[in-house]
């Protein structure tokens, strides 16, 4: 592949970025004993981006002969030339050390060591396990999927790398029904790594058991009364808050369109207990689902500290925005597939653990909630968010109480982080089965410790 790339770059008289991406995607899903999906797909091709007179042109092809690839390069170049006549603000790229060599994350037990039969029977077995858990579980769903990627990236200014990656996911949903009432619970895991890494935290039967139990417990749960409360967020919710409500506002392209974080570098934006990071590597614990060793512009990724002890210190950049802000690129340019051009995206986003014990954090609460399990999430560029919570436990006089249902939380994320008064010693990655959508998808992860803070609990009045 590099030979072909070199031929193109030799003929090019402009900045040229070539990316071959072969993606193998396998998935199996079963609902209520019925196989809904058993598929295997290959999606591969070359995406070429060129910069002419400060304007981008991008073209991609699934046809890989030298003449087709050259034609694609010319398409990109013509597109850039036409663009440059109409572009007002000319683009420049920051110079940095580009990635060279071979890159592969740590993989324990290659996914290819396990046959399709084994994966299919695991999905069938796990789905059945939930329906067998109790007669109250009337429907269940289980899905296994794996993304296996190989990339070659070369740029006319020095990147030359060959990258392997493997990201499996496993998810279960249990639906419980009683007296016409229906509840649902969801558990999932997703990692960068192999078969052994996927089930390192929890085994399939534990995920199935947890989801079934929660769905059944929710049947008897009551709705909370909406109010502003002291709460403890679990690592999953801390991850969702870090990614969805804070992370997007510090993506430099969103900052330039006027997000909440615009002009806030060097200013205090959160409690001094908060250090928030986005990293291409798996920090603290291994195999985070958003691992990215080199970004899709060929820049080696690193650990990017966004908020340090409550002070905003960095945005997330590609080569274009790092030139505008006069900083080093952070390796956040990502393209989902070969036919996508790189955009600024997050990788593994988290809050650093602190010094508190979770038990003490609960003990110190007179009235509040322990919130676990992120469901849906929405946030705006002004950092206002609304998330659904799967499990909400009352805390009264330092003791955990009843489970509640239908709980949503909302607030302004920076205000919520300002209200943090305790950060636990624990740490978990929890969103590895998640995808982030921003014109294209990206595989990301997020997590953190338990946080104690204040926010708005939305529920409804008692039935």
């Amino acid at each position, binding site marked *: 592949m590099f030979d072909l790339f070199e031929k193109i770059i030799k003929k090019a008289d402009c900045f040229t970025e070539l990316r071959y991406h072969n993606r193998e995607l396998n998935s199996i899903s079963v609902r209520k004993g019925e196989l809904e999906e058993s*598929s295997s797909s*290959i999606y591969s091709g070359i995406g070429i981006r060129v910069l002419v007179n400060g304007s981008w042109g991008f073209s*991609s092809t*699934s*046809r890989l002969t030298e003449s087709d690839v050259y034609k694609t390069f010319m*398409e990109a170049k013509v597109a850039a030339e*036409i663009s440059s006549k109409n572009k007002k603000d000319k683009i420049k790229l920051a110079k940095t050390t580009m990635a060279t060599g071979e890159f592969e994350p740590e993989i324990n037990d290659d996914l290819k060591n396990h046959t399709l039969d084994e994966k299919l029977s695991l999905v069938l077995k796990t789905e059945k396990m939930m329906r067998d858990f109790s007669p109250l579980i009337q429907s269940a769903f289980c899905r296994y999927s794996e993304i296996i990627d190989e990339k070659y990236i070369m740029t006319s200014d020095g990147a030359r790398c060959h990258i392997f990656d493997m990201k499996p996911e496993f998810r279960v949903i249990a639906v419980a029904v009683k007296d016409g009432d229906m509840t649902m619970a969801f558990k999932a895991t997703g990692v960068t790594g192999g078969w052994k890494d996927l089930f390192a935290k929890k085994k399939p039967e534990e995920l199935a058991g947890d989801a079934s139990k929660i769905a059944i417990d929710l049947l008897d749960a009551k709705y909370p009364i909406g109010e502003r409360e002291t709460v403890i967020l679990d690592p999953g919710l801390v991850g969702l808050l870090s990614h969805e409500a804070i992370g997007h506002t510090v993506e430099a392209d969103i900052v330039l369109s006027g997000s909440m974080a615009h002009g806030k570098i060097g200013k205090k934006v959160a409690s001094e207990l908060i250090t928030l990071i986005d990293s291409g590597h798996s920090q603290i614990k291994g195999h985070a689902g958003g691992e990215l060793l080199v970004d899709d512009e060929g820049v080696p990724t690193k650990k990017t500290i966004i908020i340090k002890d409550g002070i905003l210190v960095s945005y997330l950049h590609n080569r274009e925005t790092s030139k505008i802000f006069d900083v080093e690129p952070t390796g956040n340019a990502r393209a989902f597939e070969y036919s996508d051009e790189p955009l600024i995206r997050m990788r593994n986003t988290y809050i650093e653990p602190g010094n508190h014990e979770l038990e003490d954090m609960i003990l110190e609460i007179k009235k509040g909630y322990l919130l676990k399990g992120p469901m849906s999430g929405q946030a705006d560029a002004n950092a206002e968010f609304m998330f659904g919570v799967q499990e909400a436990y009352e805390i009264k006089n330092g003791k955990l109480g009843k489970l509640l249902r239908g709980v949503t939380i909302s607030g302004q994320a920076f205000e919520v982080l300002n209200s943090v008064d305790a950060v636990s010693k624990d740490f978990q990655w929890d969103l590895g089965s998640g995808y982030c959508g921003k014109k294209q998808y990206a595989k990301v992860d997020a997590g953190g410790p338990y946080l104690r803070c204040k926010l708005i609990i939305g529920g409804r009045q008692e039935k």
Partner: protein
Amino acid sequence: MELLPICDKALKIALDIGCDETEIYASTIKRIEVFFEKNDLQIARSQIEDGIGIRAFKNKGLGFSSVNSFDEKKIEEAIRNSYILTKSSPKDEFNQLPKSQKTTEVKGIYDPNSESFNTSKAMEFGLNLVNEAKNYDNRVTVDSASFEAIVGSRAIINSNGIRIQEPFSLFTYYIMGWAADDEEVSSFDYQFGGKRFINDIDVKTIAKYFAKNVIGSLGAEKGESFVGTVILSPNSVFELLIFPLLFSINSNNVQKKMSKFKGKIGEKIASNLLTIKDNGILPHGLGSSSFDREGVPHKPINIIENGKLISYMYNTYTANKEGRLSTGHASGGARTAPGIGPTNFIIKSGNVNYKDMISNIGRGIIVTRFSGNTNPVSGDFSGVVKGGYLIKNGKIIKPLIETLIAGNIFEALNKITAISKETKWVNSSILPYLVIEDVNITSG
């Protein structure tokens, strides 16, 4: 590009290695897009993509694989993958492919001139789109806009004798953003347009419409809280009603007991005024094609007639479960096995002019766009009104900010009291303005 010979070869390989029934879907697409962001050109891009999807059954077990290449070796490998998957899959007696039926060719979905459409041409249309909006009023801010041209062909053959190919072209464009006046920022607006033929492309109309909307919503004030009448624009009909309706008429959701419309065929589920059709062979339709993802011919289907539920949407698998024929609603492309989806989803226009609709309302609001959540199972919805206007005594009083609406979709369907003569394309739906009574309107 001739796709059928590629499909023929693939089908032969599949049957030779032992598949019982096999379906080969192939497509080739050329795509050109110019994309604008923050009032400036962001990128011009183009793409050529070939794709082939193989669905095979062996002993009634399912296997699907796809590859985005017409390279013979890669296709053969994909077929083998599909065959391997069938062998592990549990037997399902409803796994059967459709039989060949007579297909009528739909008119007006392919412009031969589109084969030579290029980036310069796309740039011209894209610049016209953005400049028309900016020139309307200098307070208009274009957050993003896009002009995209797609030209391609799709083919399908199966071991039951279906063998068919069809070319198509499609030009789509959108513009979104707001108006800013000193410190004030208007509501966000989004407008979409699409055509099949180059000569029909009209970016200026949607650009003006967008500009007029965002300028018109400047100077918005808080409104009033009441239970009352709303006028939904075609855009907000799409955002509020179409997703839960499509979910509820999807036969898979009906069979899995997730649809509110289960067991309601022949029953009244909406106001007498409401008639909905899905017509896959509408000439020039943005969702038109002669056949669906399984090669079943498209035909017009009545979904709701004068408030009565007439039909769900079926593909071959869900139809087999009920011993009936597919309605031609298998959806998707080369990368996934057939799902279920609409073609041109059409709410029949009514007999009231939009202007008269407004003058007939004592107290109500116009909802230009809706941004919120809808639960397709229960039908509960709540969300924010964008580009809202207060109506009193038949007159538009003022633009609104911070207004929320809430209610239940299935109840709202029964409270439609007027449907406009005017309709508009929103993606591949044709939608009128609707008047709905008894909606909870809350001013923040």
